[in-house]
């Protein structure tokens, strides 16, 4: 149940960027509504970071338009920076400053008045659970705490649009969940969030996704619609002998792909209703007695593979 769609917070048109002979981003169009958590999803080298940097006005595009909160990012980079906040992939804070000093510094750069800075940092630290550590050097924080501190520094001036480049890379699942809880809270207060991720499982948490490949957006929709758009259906065959199961089902009529997991095989078929009984017979013929076949919900990774396949071996970066 999505909140009513209102105005567009980030609009991108015809965005391109090359580095030497390598075209990192090719003619991208995007429209992100206010209050969305929009995910740019793709493997390393798909162009995620380049797009985020251009949105954040720290990298000039070769061509194209970017409007953030109505401000032309290309023409008025400095004015746009007042409306948005950007958290780079690599931890960008000063490790030799404390949590409080980092927050204070960024608050001052964004022109937040002193009194407001103190009140707001107090509030943000409390939400993130970092209040007891406020005088600890940033370099001595764990990965998860660093990410939260990064987020606080990015939020100190109450931006309208938040840009996060692979915010949870290298962060363990518990911290990742805490991090997402903060993002959802922000979203409810009307902040628009654009984030990039290489983790397909994380992508499912976004309200809308752009699947990136080779610098292009190949598909853009909600996770549900993307899954529905996947050709065929996914079945899980659980067994103590998953290798045998895969061997048995590979190449059988209607089987589009078979993926060996730890204790099961994911099989993509053209028609679940028709193929389940057929496959049941196939594995039984092989003498695999413990196989249990159930329909499985595809993940974004399944969608990605089904829709995009693999890159060329000699793709220059």
């Amino acid at each position, binding site marked *: 149940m999505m909140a009513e769609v209102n105005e567009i917070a980030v609009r991108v048109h015809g965005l391109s960027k090359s580095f030497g002979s390598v075209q990192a981003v090719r003619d991208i169009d995007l429209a992100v509504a206010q209050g969305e958590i929009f995910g740019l999803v793709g493997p390393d080298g798909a162009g995620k970071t380049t797009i985020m*940097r251009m949105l*954040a*006005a*720290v*990298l*000039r595009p070769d061509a194209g338009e970017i409007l953030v909160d109505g401000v032309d990012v290309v023409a008025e*980079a*400095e004015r746009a*920076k*007042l409306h948005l*906040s*950007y*958290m*780079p992939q*690599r*931890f*960008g*804070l*000063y*490790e*030799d*400053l404390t949590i409080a*000093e980092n927050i*204070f*510094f*960024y608050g*001052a*750069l*964004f*022109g937040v008045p002193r009194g407001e800075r103190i009140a707001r940092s107090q509030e943000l630290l409390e939400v993130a659970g970092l209040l007891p550590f406020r005088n600890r050097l940033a370099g001595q924080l764990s990965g998860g705490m660093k990410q939260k501190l990064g987020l606080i*520094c990015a939020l100190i001036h109450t931006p309208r649009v938040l840009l996060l480049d692979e915010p949870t890379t290298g962060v363990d699942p518990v911290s990742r969940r805490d991090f997402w809880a903060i993002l959802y809270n922000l979203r409810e207060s009307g902040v628009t969030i654009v984030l990039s991720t290489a983790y397909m499982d994380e992508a499912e948490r976004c309200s809308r996704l752009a699947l990136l490949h080779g610098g292009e957006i190949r598909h853009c929709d909600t996770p549900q619609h993307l899954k529905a758009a996947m050709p065929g259906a996914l079945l899980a065959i659980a067994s103590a002998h998953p290798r045998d199961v895969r061997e048995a089902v590979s190449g059988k009529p209607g089987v589009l792909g078979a993926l060996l997991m730890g204790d099961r095989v994911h099989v993509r078929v053209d028609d679940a209703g028709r193929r389940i009984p057929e496959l049941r017979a196939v594995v039984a013929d092989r003498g695999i007695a413990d196989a249990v076949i159930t329909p499985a919900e595809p993940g974004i990774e399944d969608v990605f593979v089904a829709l995009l396949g693999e890159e060329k071996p000699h793709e220059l970066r």
Partner: protein
Amino acid sequence: MNIQRLLAMAYKEALQVWRDPRSLAVALLMPLMQMGLLGYGVSLDIKHVPLCVYDQENSQASRSVVDSFTASSWFTISHTISSEAGIRRAMDRGECAAAIVIPVDFSRTLSATGSAPLQAIFDATDVNTTNIAMGYAQGVVAQANAALTARWAASHGAQPSLVGQVDLEPSVWFNETLESRDFIIPGVVAVILALVGAQLTSLTISREWERGTMEQLISTPVTPLEVMFGKLIPYFAIGLLDAAFCLAVAAFWFHVPFHGSVGILFVTTALFDLVVLGIGYLISVRIRNQLGASQVALLLTMLPTTLLSGYTFPIDQMPAAIQVLTYAVYSRYYVTILRAIFLKGSGLTDLWAPILGLVAYAAIIIWLAARAFRKQL
């Protein structure tokens, strides 16, 4: 320029210097070490300089002069010899650092004219020791004079004010263009300031690139000017502090005579500080890794300041082409000003040209530095 952002930038930078042991060492320990090395490495306190005596006359008067040397704790007679060649031998072996030669007609000349020459020879391979020993020798001779004068006056019944003197004629071997500490020390201040200033600032931007903090920084509304001035403020203060320290040590510890105006000294030092910080900052913007930036900074400050500023090698003795080149070396102006203020007490009327040179240099460097930094990846 927004004052809040500027101050935030300066405060952040100051905290970082304060917490970085390496920067602190460069800022505080380096000047201390350099001044200390210079002062004590060349042994300020000289005692028992080995002295070789060649008394050609061996009269009562000549012995009284030798006795004055023996009596002082500054000299110890190491050899008494009977030929000029013996002095050379003793010095070559390093057995004496100074020699006095009393001529055959010493007492006769003294009685006849009221004044007689006394030759003193110094091994000036160690300039500073020589300098000091020469001073001591003059002191010893002054004492000997007093004794001789009293005796001469008593035997001639004349007024002491009319009596003659023993004239010390020092001659320096091995290093004819003797340089003095007074000449060197003001220059050292320039070297330290150039080294410390450019070293520290050369790291400031490159460090942000290297540690990945730059990307975050340029995504904020901070302007390039705020970044530059914010970053330079703490280093400017450190530079002035270091300079004050070095100048104070020069004047009060090493007793380099100071005749000039403190005001001009302050203003020109601030200008020079600005120039070296600007150069360090420019390097830092251009070279995005700390090691490279630091090396280039060393190359662009130490080399010209030690070789081409006139600090060690007098500019007027350089080939003409090199002399022209020295006008491009910013330290040249500062070293000239420093020496003139210290030793000659020169004022604005004499120094307007090098001061103008420094102002022009500072203006150009800061202008370039302000334009160098772009908020783009």
